[in-house]
């Protein structure tokens, strides 16, 4: 029913009976509005709207310095080596992709002449090719023209394993061929409904062939331009000190009219999030600070009478508690949490459900995340058309107790429930991080009321998230009963986010715990939905498949979502940054300006 309505609406837009804006409004009304709305239209055969960010300045430059504070300073300036978002942000000042994600999660053309669509011939109906056209006349900072050869080179460079590029996955499973000097075609091996990955966003930044051609493969580290970027961006390189400072100056030949606004740019690193917020909001020493993971209470206090404010950008980042489906205390062939075992307590769905009832998301939001969090029952929280409306959550110690009672767990003399002489005891691990330890305490308290003894464990982040095969404390080894952390959504598409939990991806000793399915959850229905979604070209059916996947995770209580987290930034009151929850902070840097 709904399906038919939407199809009708897409046709209306196509034939010009409805304008795009009305379409998007209608989608909001039915809970379908989304960053991916335009992708729906694009695959439905409607050309993408060119929807740049609001931008008022009428001339280039004259805006003085732009001072950015990144409390973790960028350590390298080659976008293909960018390990963390800090490095991507730093590289993005000088390098640009073909398109970036704008505030609403639409594609915004940067180096591309237009966004590919079925109408302009950029997309094929079978979702196996994408044709990108470069804007003519774009020049590198050293004056050489940007051509299709550069694009082909970036693909060759990144997909070569010897280069040791971090972006390798973005450029594998496809080939890039030159059509003419300004046109390339991406050929996917499989139908790829989400085509806007290569050459788009953080890992889509393009480096010049003429400076990097000699440093492809094993010699990639030796390229002198790894430290002296020559890109196409709004600012030209001046100075770089790893971990400390990036300085740039206006690019007078920038390819967008009246941009950029600022004459110089400085990105300073180091310190901590609280003092970064203070330098922007309270003293106004800096214009913008990144990733202010500070308790909302502190931010509200700083904002009183300050020179700046906190900004929140909605994306799909999810903080959750994952349940271990295997037994972390039994060793099978030198491996704990082996898929050959079953968790003695948590394999009972009633216990998992009881746990979900014991996570008081409202309290966590009130006490910790404040404006930077939204409560949710879903693992998948965006873009809108992928968000399930079929789920709900509640906090109830009584219901949880009743469920545990049903499952045969009776209160013992010390208040802790037991069954067949075994205590109901769980080990709950997470990384060391203020909000996480507070959440642990809130959950533990509720569990105690319901008669579950929870032991808390926190691991240093660099260990918890490491791929060290020998270390038992990583999130992937999962030698605990439940664990909590956050998985960011780096692009407005759920494919990568959901594929993790396919049963072929279970983390085991055999794959050196590299399988991203760390809860070791296996569900045939889920596998089938994800497999189907991977090649489904119909956007509506595809969204339905991901919603089904999310609902299966919810039914099985694989993940207990704790908080849908928003990105928090601090900005001076006069600065108008163009931010998006679907992109890195500097992804639309060319559109930043200051209101006088």
């Amino acid at each position, binding site marked *: 029913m709904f399906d038919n309505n939407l199809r009708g609406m897409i046709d209306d837009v196509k034939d010009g009976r409805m304008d795009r804006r009305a379409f998007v409004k209608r989608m909001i009304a039915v809970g379908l509005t989304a960053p991916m709305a335009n992708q729906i239209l694009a695959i439905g055969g409607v050309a993408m709207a060119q929807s740049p960010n609001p931008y008022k300045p009428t001339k280039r430059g004259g805006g003085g310095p732009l001072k950015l504070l990144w409390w973790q300073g960028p350590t390298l300036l080659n976008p293909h080596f960018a390990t963390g978002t800090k490095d991507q942000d730093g590289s993005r000042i000088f390098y640009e992709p073909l398109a970036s994600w704008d505030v609403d999660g639409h594609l915004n053309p940067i180096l591309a002449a237009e966004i590919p669509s079925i109408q302009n011939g950029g997309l094929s109906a079978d979702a196996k090719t994408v044709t990108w056209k470069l804007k003519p006349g774009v020049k590198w900072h050293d004056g050489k023209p940007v051509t299709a050869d550069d694009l082909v080179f970036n693909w060759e460079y990144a997909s070569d394993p010897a280069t040791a590029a971090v972006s390798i996955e973005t450029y594998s499973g496809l080939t890039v061929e030159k059509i003419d000097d300004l046109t390339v075609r991406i050929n996917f091996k499989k139908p790829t409904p989400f085509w806007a990955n290569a050459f788009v966003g953080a890992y889509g930044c393009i480096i010049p062939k003429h400076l990097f051609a000699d440093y492809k493969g094993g010699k990639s580290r030796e390229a002198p331009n790894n430290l002296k970027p020559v890109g196409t961006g709004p600012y030209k390189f001046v100075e770089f000190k790893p971990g400390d400072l990036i300085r740039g100056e206006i690019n007078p030949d920038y390819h967008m009219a009246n941009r950029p606004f600022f004459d110089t740019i400085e990105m300073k690193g*180091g310190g901590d999030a609280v003092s970064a917020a203070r330098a922007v909001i309270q003293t106004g020493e800096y214009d913008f600070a990144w990733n202010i993971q500070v308790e909302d209470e502190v931010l509200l206090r700083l904002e009183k009478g300050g020179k700046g404010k906190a900004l929140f950008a909605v994306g799909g980042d999810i903080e959750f508690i994952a349940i271990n489906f295997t037994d972390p205390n039994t060793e099978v062939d030198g491996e704990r949490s082996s898929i050959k075992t079953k968790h003695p307590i948590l394999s009972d769905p009633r216990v998992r459900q009881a746990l979900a009832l014991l996570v008081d998301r409202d309290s966590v939001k009130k006490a910790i995340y404040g404006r930077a969090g939204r409560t949710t029952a879903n693992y998948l929280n965006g873009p809108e058309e992928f968000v399930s409306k079929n789920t709900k959550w509640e906090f109830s110690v009584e219901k949880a107790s009743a469920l545990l009672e049903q499952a045969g767990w009776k209160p013992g003399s010390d208040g802790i429930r037991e069954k067949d002489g075994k205590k109901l005891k769980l080990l709950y691990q997470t990384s060391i991080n203020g909000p996480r330890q507070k959440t642990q305490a809130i959950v533990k308290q509720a569990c105690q009321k319901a008669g579950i003894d929870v032991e808390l464990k926190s691991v240093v982040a*660099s260990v918890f998230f490491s791929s060290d095969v020998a270390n038992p404390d990583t999130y992937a080894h999962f030698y605990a009963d439940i664990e909590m952390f956050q998985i960011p959504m780096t692009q407005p598409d759920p494919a990568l986010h959901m594929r993790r939990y396919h049963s072929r991806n279970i983390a085991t000793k055999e794959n050196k715990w590299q399988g991203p399915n760390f809860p070791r959850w296996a569900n045939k229905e889920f596998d089938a939905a994800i497999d189907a979604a991977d090649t489904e070209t119909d956007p509506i059916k595809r969204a339905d498949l991901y919603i089904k996947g999310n609902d299966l995770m919810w039914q099985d209580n694989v993940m207990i979502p704790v908080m849908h987290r928003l990105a928090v930034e601090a900005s001076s009151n006069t600065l108008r940054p163009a931010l998006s929850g679907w992109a890195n902070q500097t992804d639309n840097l060319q559109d930043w300006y200051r209101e006088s």
Partner: protein
Amino acid sequence: MSQYILRRLMIAIPSLLGISVVLFVVLALAPGDPFSELATNPNVPPEVQAALRAKFGLDDPIYLRYLHWITAMAHGDWGFSFVSRVDVDTLILQRLPTTLYVVGSSQLLALLIAIPVGVYAATRPYSLFDQLANTFAFIGFSLPTFFTGILFILVFSVKLDWLPFVYTSVPGSGIPWLLEMIRQAIMPVMVLGLFQAASMTRFVRSAMLDVIRLDYVTTARAKGLGQAKVIVKHVMRNAMIPVVTLIALQMPAVFGGAIVTEQIFRIPGIGSLLISSILANDTPVVMAVTFVFACLVVLFNLIADVLYGWLDPRISFR
């Protein structure tokens, strides 16, 4: 004398080797790896993280990694940072001037406060001035720098809005540039300098008191020499011997930076390089910085011993 120095240098080699082995093993046994940031990024599959580990040799056995490191070091190749893929010596040289400037000035400030105050307090023990100096010295070294640092920021940056609390390299040159460089260094230099001055004042005072009671001082006074001459020429000269040793042993710290203070004021010095490298498990950088630090400690120990002999000819080298 030269034979003594040579012998000391020869002894230094095995001890430095021993230090390097201990450092390397401790770092290798420390858990975590430099690519943990990739773990939760769904765009980067875990195989990429593992491939990077293999490429940078993180999966080799410890003794092999140590041999690689020590042979490269012997050839003057300090290795490259896993995190920024930049040569380690470049990174360190980039950070050194700032550390020398900030930590050096704070040591200088500490000396300028400690010597006059300590000497004057010792000439009038238990006077009001001495009591005050003692009280402030106790307060000074009881308050950790992270506390005074934040206190200074709250008072001078947030409340009074006089000084910036983010230290950054200012572009430009000339007088305004110089003034800005001084302005932004005031708070960190004060925080570090006052902390150092506090303990040094106590040290100078007690060294002076030890000497001032000796018979030859009384003799000098009996000869009819003025107070100033007695204190400066006769007492201070001898009292300064332990102080000079103390200062010489402080010198490596000038190169090593001040980890906490550099972090608070975002000073791009060696200390902040070390702490961020430790947090990122960037072994080559941590190795290089700590090893250089060890070399400096050994070197300045030697210098202190040589200075001793020069200041007090009764001490002979054997």
